[in-house]
């Protein structure tokens, strides 16, 4: 493994700037995003272009996380239903398509300078806010730059850090200047946080946006009722008149509600609910393959989780096949302890796939010298499937002679009190539009979500460089090295990538999976319709 890292170091400084950003954008993104798996799962692709969309009707969505934290302030979005509310009420500059490529929305087109540090966006004219005022570039600039403001306390603060300025250049052109090159800026400006709001808005109790819907009723933690925005800039959209979100926190109850026809769409099916919906004649399982994951991470800056052998032993104590078959019911992909999906063109196929291997685990345990010391792994109901994965791991650990104990931590304080603060803990991560974004957030020194506190200068450099690397081959090489470093660090046991498994009534048409989230990447309300 040291060979590989060395090679990565040698090739670290790749040339920058060459190539055509526009053409190669597909390669910059994950590229794994095809809907082939949906067909494989036996689900008809919902909403083929053959049927003509019909207008009208109400669609009800049951969300999975009930919380009075519900908000329209995109700086504070944390949950899927926040995103759905956001994409329904606000517009964005760009939007990801099924393949993960940015598509024009409010921005009609974009052009970078040669080293991707200055981007010019052409803004679609004639867009109106729901209160009748006209959208201006100032509004868009505010919508991006407000995330830098101290008092906004935005979850996109890190992401906006690379943006130096946003300014108008003529009536319909907006220029974004960057600190360092970023070939994926058009993807970045389309993330949920960069919802386009009116300049100077800090109070989102009564949101005003340019999206397909306006708010009729908003009761945090109870329901959201949205109705068609008559002045929506997309001709003929949305198809449905009304969209409602409410909460059914219990997975079984959610499945029951879909089966009994009380709701039309649900976020997240689990366990035998999946089979029940699959068997049903009035609803279907809607699968979005993704690189979302639940991992067991080690905080490498403290004992006992700074023991690399112990960490590697754990990696061999997960029966990934069983996780996939039993816990995920097959709705996922086996992973190899790094966050890059196997279908990605950047996937490092040279790394040997880790499997359940008690002998190897024993070998590493022997080397680690932990003996009978108690090793605690924190899991939580707030981290999807972590309790189950933990139990599988615990069982194998007892076979290998490791005294592993699970601690189920309360979900509410998990991220503030447990993740990154205990030696071993489960984390989950939703896919980001680009791997680079993910690596920046989770594997950089001092990054917010670097829960393992893993620091590696080489990795640091590779992440920065790859953002500016325009040559696909070079980038592949950089990514290979990144994966090798993470794989060998032992900082993360990542058994499987989890598909998004949702339930959708057969009446719903026009929904296609977009691999950054549930139900069409949480961005679907302006394109679905109800079957006549």
């Amino acid at each position, binding site marked *: 493994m040291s060979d590989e890292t060395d090679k990565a170091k040698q090739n670290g400084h790749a040339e920058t700037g060459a190539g055509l950003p526009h053409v190669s954008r597909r390669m910059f993104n994950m590229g794994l995003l095809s809907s082939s798996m949906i067909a494989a799962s036996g689900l008809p692709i919902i909403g083929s272009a053959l049927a003509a969309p019909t207008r009208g009707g109400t669609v009800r969505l049951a969300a999975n996380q009930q919380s009075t934290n519900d908000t329209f302030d995109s700086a504070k979005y944390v949950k899927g239903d926040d995103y759905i509310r956001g994409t329904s009420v606000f517009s964005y500059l760009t939007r990801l398509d099924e393949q993960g490529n940015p598509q024009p929305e409010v921005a009609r087109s974009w052009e970078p300078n040669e080293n991707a540090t200055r981007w010019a966006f052409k803004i679609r004219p004639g867009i109106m806010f729901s209160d009748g005022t006209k959208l201006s570039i100032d509004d868009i600039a505010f919508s991006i730059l407000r995330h830098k403001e101290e008092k906004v*306390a935005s979850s996109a603060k890190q992401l906006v850090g690379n943006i130096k300025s946003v300014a108008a250049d003529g009536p319909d052109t907006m220029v974004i200047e960057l600190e360092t090159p970023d070939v994926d800026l058009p993807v970045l400006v389309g993330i949920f946080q960069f919802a386009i709001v009116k300049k100077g808005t800090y109070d989102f109790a009564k949101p005003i946006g340019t999206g397909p819907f306006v708010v009729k009723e908003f009761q945090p933690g109870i329901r959201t009722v949205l109705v068609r925005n008559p002045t929506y800039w997309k001709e003929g959209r949305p198809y449905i008149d009304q969209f409602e979100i*409410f909460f059914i926190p219990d997975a079984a*109850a959610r499945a029951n509600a879909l*089966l009994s026809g009380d709701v039309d769409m649900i976020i997240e099916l689990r366990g035998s609910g999946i089979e029940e919906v699959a068997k049903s004649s009035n609803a279907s399982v809607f699968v979005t393959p993704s690189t979302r994951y639940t991992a067991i991470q080690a905080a490498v800056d403290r004992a006992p989780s700074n023991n690399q052998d112990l960490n590697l032993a754990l990696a061999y104590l997960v029966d990934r096949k069983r996780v996939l078959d039993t816990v995920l019911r097959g709705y996922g992909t086996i992973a190899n302890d790094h966050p890059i999906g196997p279908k990605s063109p950047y996937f490092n196929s040279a790394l040997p796939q880790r499997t359940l291997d008690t002998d190897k685990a024993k070998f590493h345990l022997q080397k680690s010298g932990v003996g009978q010391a108690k090793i605690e792994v924190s899991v939580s109901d707030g981290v999807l499937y972590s309790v189950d994965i933990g139990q599988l791991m615990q069982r194998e650990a007892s076979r290998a002679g490791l005294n592993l104990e699970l601690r189920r931590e309360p979900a509410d304080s998990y991220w503030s009190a447990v993740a990154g603060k205990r030696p071993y803990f489960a984390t989950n991560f939703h896919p980001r539009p680009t791997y680079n974004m993910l690596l920046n957030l989770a594997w950089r020194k001092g990054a*917010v979500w670097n829960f393992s506190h893993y620091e590696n200068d080489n990795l640091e450099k590779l992440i920065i460089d790859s953002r500016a690397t325009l040559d696909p081959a070079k980038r592949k090489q950089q990514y290979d090295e990144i994966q090798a470093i993470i794989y060998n660090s032992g900082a993360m046991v990542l058994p499987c990538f989890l598909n998004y498994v949702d339930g959708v009534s057969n009446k719903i048409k026009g929904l296609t999976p977009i691999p950054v989230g549930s139900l069409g990447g949480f961005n679907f309300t302006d394109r679905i319709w109800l079957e006549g």
Partner: protein
Amino acid sequence: MLSFILKRVLQTIVLLLAVSILVFIGCEILPGDVAQVALGQFATEDNVRALRLELGLDRPAYERYLSWLVGILQGDWGQSITTKTPVATMLSERLWNTGLLALVTTVVAVPLALVLGLLMAVGAGRTWDRSASIVVLGLSATPEFLIGSLAVLLFAVQLRWLPAVAYLSPGSGFSQTARALFLPVLTLVIVVTAQIARMTRAIIANLLTQPFVEMAVLKGVPSRRIVGVHALINAVGPLANIVALNIAYLVSGVVVVETIFAYPGLAGLMINAVQARDLPVVQACALIFCATYVIMILVADILAHLYDPRSNAQAAMEKL
């Protein structure tokens, strides 16, 4: 009577004050403050500091409590920290939902339970009583999550007669509301009826061993009159107490049913608020629960007083 009520009201106020302090301290002790919890996975030190500033959490604890207390005394429940909406607004719909569920359940369950309990007491020892007792005992010992889950499985998923979730959409009509409420009400009615009927039987059966009941028998008074008049008027106090406790339970203790049927009620809100460390909302819920309990018990006590000729209340009424 008046001084009795006045004294109890005073006690209630002290109790509520104690609860509010307790809740406040409790929320302070909980790991993670509202800012950390709200930002969750996205919490960074900068974020948290900014949000704390925004929410006014930088002030000392006692100051925040006092300003909350002053607000409450002026009838202002304060503002939810997380949603920035007034707590009163947040509570209103939940309170209505919880009240509706409790009311409908009470209206169905209490008469049912009393009649059942009386019938069992009349037939005390007979086959009917023994079998009914075991059924009632069985139901009161069955965890409500099982009753609820089975009800959903049968009526919603298998038979498709009723909705699986009790989602009350705004402006839904009577029949829609009735359908939505049916299963949660059914579950709670089973639980509550079993409890009250069991206690009613025990209380009445105990009264039936009293000498005045033997005297009534020896006067030739028929059983139904003995149970329905002689025993019942003596059971008003304890029965009122049991009914009151059950109503208080229906307002505050139905977390499980709210979970199973995704019913947006107060208990769920409180848990939600605790999880979000949204103190004003937690406070409001805790006070409502506590006040419900105390008021219910007070009403039961007043009722018991009114039906007890030996109490001052009766004497006072006679004078009027």
